[in-house]
């Protein structure tokens, strides 16, 4: 297997009496599109939130590209190189599309309050660079035509793309997408697929949560399956597809 980018071991997360994740292991190789699937309530999004620092895991270990990110704050996780999108799109709705992406450059720029007030040449150059980079990213995901529209007024497909552009603005090594195809029509899903391949080919590893098994099977290099907070299968799509445990989780067990 290729070099491991993200490695988590034995991650446990409880919410009161509910064991949302129990002993989850995951190894994501560099340069892959890695799928994470499972029925509703399997703990996919919980795992995502643990990975990106929104939830604190109870036990386990979590290393990413040489950084120990166990119980790290969200901004540290981003700094280490993990960016994410949200299942129920969380854009800054009163900002324009361009400004949304500019916020994504926050971590890659430094100007503080003093720079903002003095507007010295360095700050101005940085600001121009932020704007230029944001514009490039809008171009990359193909939504420059709505650059100056408020995020809340964009179409659903555009909002999804904008969220990806914003995440890419942090120059991540791992891009984590939480059900990006949810609610998309077949054409939009197809476009998205191309976009993801393009991003992967650009050197960014992708972790994809998806409901749409067909999309995952066709796109991902490896897949992990979660059910009731446990990882029940892992491997290349062909083996996972045939795994009896996976079939059981998705279709239920036959009673004789």
């Amino acid at each position: 297997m290729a070099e491991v980018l993200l490695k988590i071991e034995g991650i446990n997360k409880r919410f009161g009496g509910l064991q949302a994740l129990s002993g989850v292991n995951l190894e994501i190789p560099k340069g892959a599109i890695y799928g994470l699937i499972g029925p509703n309530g399997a703990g996919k999004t919980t795992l995502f939130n643990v990975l990106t620092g929104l939830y604190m895991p109870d036990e386990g270990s979590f290393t990413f590209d040489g950084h120990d990110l166990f119980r790290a704050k969200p901004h540290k996780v981003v700094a280490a190189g993990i960016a994410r999108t949200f299942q129920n799109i969380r854009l800054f709705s009163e900002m324009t599309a361009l400004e949304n992406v500019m916020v994504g450059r926050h971590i890659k720029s430094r100007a503080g309050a003093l720079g903002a007030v003095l507007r010295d040449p360095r700050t101005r150059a940085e600001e121009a660079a932020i704007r230029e980079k944001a514009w490039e990213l809008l171009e990359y995901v193909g939504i420059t035509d709505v650059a100056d529209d408020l995020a809340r007024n964009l179409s659903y497909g555009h909002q999804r793309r904008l969220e990806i552009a914003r995440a890419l603005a942090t120059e991540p090594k791992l891009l984590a997408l939480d059900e990006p195809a949810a609610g998309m029509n077949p054409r939009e899903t197809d476009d998205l697929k191309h976009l993801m391949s393009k991003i992967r080919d650009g050197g960014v590893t992708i972790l994809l949560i998806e409901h749409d098994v067909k999309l995952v099977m066709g796109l991902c290099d490896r897949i992990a399956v979660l059910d009731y907070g446990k990882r029940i299968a892992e491997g290349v799509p062909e083996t996972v597809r045939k795994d009896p445990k996976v079939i059981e989780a998705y279709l239920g067990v036959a009673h004789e």
Partner: protein
Amino acid sequence: MTNSTLRGKLGIYLVSAFLLAAQPFLVGGFLGNSWVRIIDFALLYIMLALGLNIVVGFAGLLDMGYIAFYAVGAYTYGLLSSPQFGLHLPFYITIPLGAVCAACFGLLLGTPVLRLKGDYLAIVTLGFGEIIRIFMNNLNQPVNITNGPQGVNLIDPIHLGGLTLGKTMEIGSLSLPVVYLHYYLFLALSVLVVILATRLQRSRIGRAWVALREDDIAAAAMGINIRNIKLLAFALGALSGGIAGGLFASFQGFISPESFGLMESIMILAMVVLGGMGHIPGVVLGAVVLTIAPEILRDTIGPMQMSTFGRMIVDPENARQLLFGLALVVMMLVRPAGMWPSKRRALEFSDAKAKARAQKG
């Protein structure tokens, strides 16, 4: 930009600069110096409202105890330049020091409320504002620091060498009363605060504040350090309040805890909300209108009743409060986004209205 619009803009700037410079003479000449004094206060409130606007308008943190920072600035100046301790430090030390102290208090308030939002944040900050006031009220024993409810008296006016803002200045045949001198000082500082606030808004920091206001979880996921950016908003907001406080102390020559009550906090918040939250020109307008309107009412209600009814029916002070409250309610109904909202917010409110209508119909 074409040449003619550029010239037009330049013209507008020149005319407004001239009007602002001539204002005390115009107002003082026609209406009397008491009105110049009111305008001086309007300028102080502009600084306060712009400071609060950083916290409430930009970062979306509802702060109901903002007046505490005004108090900290005022007491820093008052205690260090008055007979209270026999200290008479110059203004160029006391005003910056007051601003820094206020910023520290901003951090002091910001730290424990990092996890709070909305209503809860409002209640805690409200409590903070009251705590500061009560401290000022009671720090006269066992050691007398603030002189308690009697307040600090005989505070030095701003002076440098032989120049003082504390008495009428004669320049040739031109005589500039105290309120005129303070007008120019306050105007200069207000312009400075406007510039600082505008620059902050259009920067990486300003964007981070708006992101925080719009969606703090997404902001964190973009690598924004939520704790630091919140504390920065509290500190910078407080800074402006502290400067205004120091100016207030020097201008009045007297401060007491009474000036820093909850009503003042609410008033400043009303300036921000009524003017147009997050929109600097709107906030400035809000501060000016809410300072001057009550004074106009004070001057007109009594005589109006006398001329129409021949006697006083409602006590002018009560009628003033009543009308003022009514005006606020009407404003919020008619223009919920404020008197002069940013184009964006105006759009947002009209969108919401259209949506509501569509759902009804």
